[in-house]
């Protein structure tokens, strides 16, 4: 399988590189060498035990390497109706950046633009960031770098607060089976802040695959809330790799919510580079049919006095599979670390599978670290209590499931988004279509 894509790359290298900035092409060369050496990971590799990723690439996908202009009338395929949520919108259609119309002006100095364009016009801004983290990523990240031609750049200069939530919507558009490689680069300089909502709506009737590499740099004292929401389809494969590097006293809050999807793999690596940094990462998966959701997180405590909190919850129905592997790595210098990880899973059928691997790897002694993981069902006593109060069994189950999921949603700091997610989860658990009304994809 790997060879097929290496061939495609070698045969089309000129085509791929021609529209791209030198910055992207330099990284590409290195990624190509690495991918060529490693290929797609096999299921015998510890990190890929339960996710056969090579198989996902087998379909006869089209890749728009020649950057044929795809005519996209995005308003006709997507309107998001999070009530009361005023956002500044941007789109990534396939891998191409496209500005949204609504929203206020961004504060001065903030750049929300095409990655490739900025890399051509102002390479100095990105040179020390682009691929700085992804270079050490797994071979899917190398694959992405090898083919990446565009994506989004968000740059926030120091001491700048972006008040309005920035919403990034990723869509796929083509009339064939489609493979697309997206790239997001987010830079927050010292003492800046932003909140970001990334909605993955890459779904079409046809088989689709998107790889996504997101690199985030959070400067000293900066503050980022990142909410990722996947609402794709059962014929979609999402391979996402999120890298975050935090400097001193920075804050990162991440909610990673998978409501619908096909084969999903989210690799999340947060590095607490300097003292006083805090990361709060959480995730919710609601799976049904043959949905396969694999979240693999690493919180790397490189420095002392950092805090990390992790909460991942899965509700698995029908034949869905959940994989959770979360590692807390406490390096020798990371004294006075506080780190906690919780993973809770509900299997609703005996065809649903859960694989959980919470891991602690600790090389410093003056730390407080713990993790807990459970697989179980709804509390029978609570169910009966509710029935005694007149709540029908099905409704009682529903309330308990929503409460189970609610713990993750409560982490969301934007009120309107939190309410909206409660509503989406509610609909999702009731088996109703979860896409927003007015969205052409759902009609």
């Amino acid at each position, binding site marked *: 399988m790997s060879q097929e894509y290496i061939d495609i790359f070698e045969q089309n290298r000129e085509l791929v590189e021609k529209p791209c900035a030198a910055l992207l092409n330099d990284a590409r060369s290195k990624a190509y060498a690495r991918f060529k050496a490693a290929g797609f990971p096999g299921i015998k590799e510890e990190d890929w035990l339960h996710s056969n990723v090579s198989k996902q690439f087998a379909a006869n996908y089209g890749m728009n390497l020649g950057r044929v202009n795809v005519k996209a009338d995005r308003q006709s395929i997507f309107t998001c109706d999070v009530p009361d949520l005023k956002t500044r919108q941007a789109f990534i259609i396939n891998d191409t950046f496209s500005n949204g119309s609504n929203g206020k002006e961004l504060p001065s100095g903030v750049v929300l633009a095409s990655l490739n364009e900025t890399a051509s016009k102002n390479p100095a801004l990105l040179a020390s960031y682009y691929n700085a983290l992804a270079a050490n990523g797994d071979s899917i990240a190398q694959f992405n770098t090898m083919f990446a031609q565009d994506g989004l750049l968000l740059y926030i200069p120091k001491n700048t607060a972006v008040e309005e939530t920035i919403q990034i919507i990723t869509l796929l558009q083509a009339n064939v089976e489609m493979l697309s490689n997206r790239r997001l680069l987010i830079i927050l300089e010292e003492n800046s802040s932003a909140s970001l909502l990334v909605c993955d709506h890459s779904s079409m009737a046809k088989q689709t695959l998107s790889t996504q590499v997101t690199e985030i740099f959070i400067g000293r004292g900066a503050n980022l809330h990142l909410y990722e929401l996947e609402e794709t389809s059962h014929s979609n494969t999402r391979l996402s790799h999120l890298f975050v590097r935090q400097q001193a006293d920075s804050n990162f809050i991440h909610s990673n919510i998978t409501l619908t999807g096909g084969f999903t793999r989210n690799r999340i690596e947060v590095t607490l580079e300097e003292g006083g940094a805090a990361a709060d990462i959480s995730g919710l998966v609601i799976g049904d049919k043959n949905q396969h959701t694999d979240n693999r997180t690493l919180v790397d405590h490189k420095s002392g006095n950092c805090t990390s909190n992790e909460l991942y919850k899965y509700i698995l129905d029908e034949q869905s599979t959940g994989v959770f592997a979360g590692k807390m790595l406490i390096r020798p210098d990371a004294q006075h670390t506080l780190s906690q990880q919780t993973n809770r899973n509900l299997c609703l059928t005996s065809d649903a599978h859960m694989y959980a691997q919470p891991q602690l790897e600790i090389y410093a002694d003056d730390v407080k670290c713990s993790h807990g993981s459970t697989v179980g069902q709804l509390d029978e006593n609570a169910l009966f209590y509710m029935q005694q109060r*007149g*709540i029908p069994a099905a*409704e009682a189950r529903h309330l*308990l499931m*929503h*409460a189970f999921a609610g*713990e993750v949603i409560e982490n969301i700091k934007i009120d309107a988004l939190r309410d909206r997610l409660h509503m989406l989860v509610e609909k999702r658990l009731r088996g109703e279509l979860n896409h927003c009304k007015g969205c052409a994809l759902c009609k």
Partner: protein
Amino acid sequence: MENLLEIKNLHATIDGKEILKGINLTVKAGEVHAIMGPNGSGKSTLSNVLVGHPAYTVTEGEIFYKGKNLLELAPEERSHEGLFLSFQYPVEIPGVSITNFMRAAINAKRQYLGQEPMNATEFLKMMREKRALVNLESKLANRSVNEGFSGGEKKRNEIFQMAMLEPTLSILDETDSGLDIDALRIVAEGVNKLKREDTSSLVITHYQRLLDYIKPDIVHVLYNGKIVKTAGPELVMELEERGYDWIKALNN
């Protein structure tokens, strides 16, 4: 007076072990019955069987409630029909707020009775009124059901829910356990305020102290899965003075 509840020769088991061994009991509308007895006599089993707990199996006998065969009804239907159990150990339900919980309960009952769901204003007004009855603080109502509640708060929450659901027959299972004297008075006063001409109660207790506040019309002693003695309120004092040993001696 009409028979509200009629239990005939009731036998019930849990995990294959017989706990109730032929209970006969009739409660008329408006009556307050006390069921007393030593630990392990089957008091909690009886209350759980009445509300349809799935862990218990009825092996013999019948229960009629408002003339209907109670054993054919699902737990929630029994609730809709006005049967309420104040649990001895109310369960904690993390993530479900009391408000949402009660709204779901009230509207399920209204749907069962063929009524429209209650509108939000009306519902919140009702919540406020009923809370006052048992001094349940408003901040508790926003918390998850029973989560992190003290023993007294849990019991007050039970009586608050009883007030909301306005049952015809309420079963108070060891409602006095774990309560100090002030909490006991608040809970008992709440129960008394809710008492109407046509509503009945089964008060299950080991001690007499709750019955100082809630006066029973009829007192039964349950021992070894059977009702072994039935008398008027004077039996409470006798049990308090003599304990249960003489009852055990009479029946062994």
